[in-house]
């Protein structure tokens, strides 16, 4: 039951993550620069544990990323070993760096290209979590180029497809 709840929470956060990514592609020059550096049509997948929820996206010139309905195999896949591990990261208890250091996920694909994605997630965490949480999990606060509330508001209005 607890696991199912975590899975549902992971699903909601992944949706917020996706929409915020698209918003920040327009509003944050650092995120835009990172995503623009990705290979054309690069596909990424985040899998939250065995039988857990997943988000698959493709690099898109116009929106930064677009959601993929079915991605059997992506160029880069970050696969959490457990739903619990994914929840710790998506709920702001641990950073991606902590999760990597604690072997909470494994990676299929090019480590080199993944680092850019990791930086984007860290920029995103700087917006999504209150400062006291970001300060606790991130090595350094990445700073914000627009108010966090604006990102939340635009993410609500963002097309989730």
């Amino acid at each position: 039951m607890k696991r199912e709840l975590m899975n549902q929470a992971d699903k909601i956060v992944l949706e917020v993550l996706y929409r915020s990514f698209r918003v920040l592609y327009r509003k944050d020059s650092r995120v835009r620069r990172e995503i623009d550096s990705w290979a054309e049509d690069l596909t990424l997948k985040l899998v939250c544990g065995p039988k857990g929820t997943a988000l698959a996206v493709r690099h898109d010139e116009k929106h930064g990323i677009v959601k993929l309905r079915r991605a059997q195999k992506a160029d880069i896949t970050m696969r959490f070993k457990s739903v619990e591990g994914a929840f710790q990261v998506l709920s702001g208890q641990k950073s991606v760096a902590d999760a990597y250091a604690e072997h909470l996920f494994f990676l299929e694909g090019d480590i080199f290209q993944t680092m850019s994605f990791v930086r984007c997630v860290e920029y995103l965490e700087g917006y999504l979590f209150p400062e006291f949480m970001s300060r606790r999990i991130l090595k350094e606060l990445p700073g914000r180029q627009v108010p966090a509330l604006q990102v939340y508001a635009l993410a609500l209005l963002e097309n989730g497809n």
Partner: protein
Amino acid sequence: MTSYFEFTNPTKLCSGKGAADNLEYELEILGVRRPMVLSDRVLEKIGTLKIVLNALREIQTGRIFTDIPRDSSVEVVNRIAKEYREFDCDGLVAVGGGSVLDTAKGVRLLISQGADDLLELMGCECLPKGTHVPFAALPTTAGTGSEATPVAVIKNPALHIKMEYISQHLMPDVAVLDPRMTLTLPPRITASTGMDTLCHAIEAYSCMQKNPVSDAYAAAAVTLVRDNLVKAVRHGRSKETRMALANASYLAGAAFGNSMVGVVHAVGHALGGVCHIPHGDAMNILLPVGMIFNRKVCRGAYGELLLYLAGPEVYQATKPENRADQAIREVIKLRRKLHELTGLPQTLKEAGADPALFPQVAETALNDGACIVNPREVTFEAVIKILEKCYE
């Protein structure tokens, strides 16, 4: 330190005088009858490879491949794997430095996974075991520690980067440390590879994945380097000091193979890929500046390291609040000594790096996996500052 850690070190260690003479037995118990032997031209020429081939005695080699360049590439690995299959080999014996050992790891990955192209297998801890390919590693430098790590660094010439492969299935079945393998190393290379060992140990002791087990390995490695590196540079024919450094390299490898390395290696890999600076030289140049960069968050770890870097008297005589700074000074002191003895470059200028390439080096370094476990956030601006400080 993280709230959870993993530590793996399944490799059997055969270390000491005459260790290579046990290779035949070790291969037999691994079921190897036609090994492929990987090495390089220099080791073939100076007779180091012959020591190993003689030690094989009754075991017939399936193929001996010595055309491995200093920085092995994806193409080389793919080609060797093809030959492994063509010559019907059933195991790998790698005799060489980091490039040869990492090449063997790449070949093992391809054979065990039934793949033809290493680029298909990129990733970190993602591969299943696959077919078991017996693998013995005989390092001929005391620096990379590759015989004890789950990491292979292979060059991708198309992208000018060194790619990292991380999997516990890369670890050799047996590592053979024999002083005969490193006796002929010139002083300059002894110094450079020794500083690589020190760098592995210091970064392992201070990066995010540090843990009590890797700390023990790293501390032991630092002590061995402290007591033996300068001696080995001065008296290269001493088997005792050569053995001590080989053990240090193995210990540091086991440490960083589990707790990983940080900004010094991230920038060092990039300097290797972009400016072609030899890895050990880059480590020697970058280490103190990398420590200064991380000092803000590593003061405690560096302070503890002073005990191993300088010994108990210096540690005790140094006030706790000054120990981290003293540890950095000890590294600089060792580096200066090695420069006096061998001319090992202390700056990027001496190493021939072109400052115009620093932005490219910084971009490359940021995408190195080592940045993620560095205890301080590594930014483009920070890497540029490190490079500028190291230039002269």
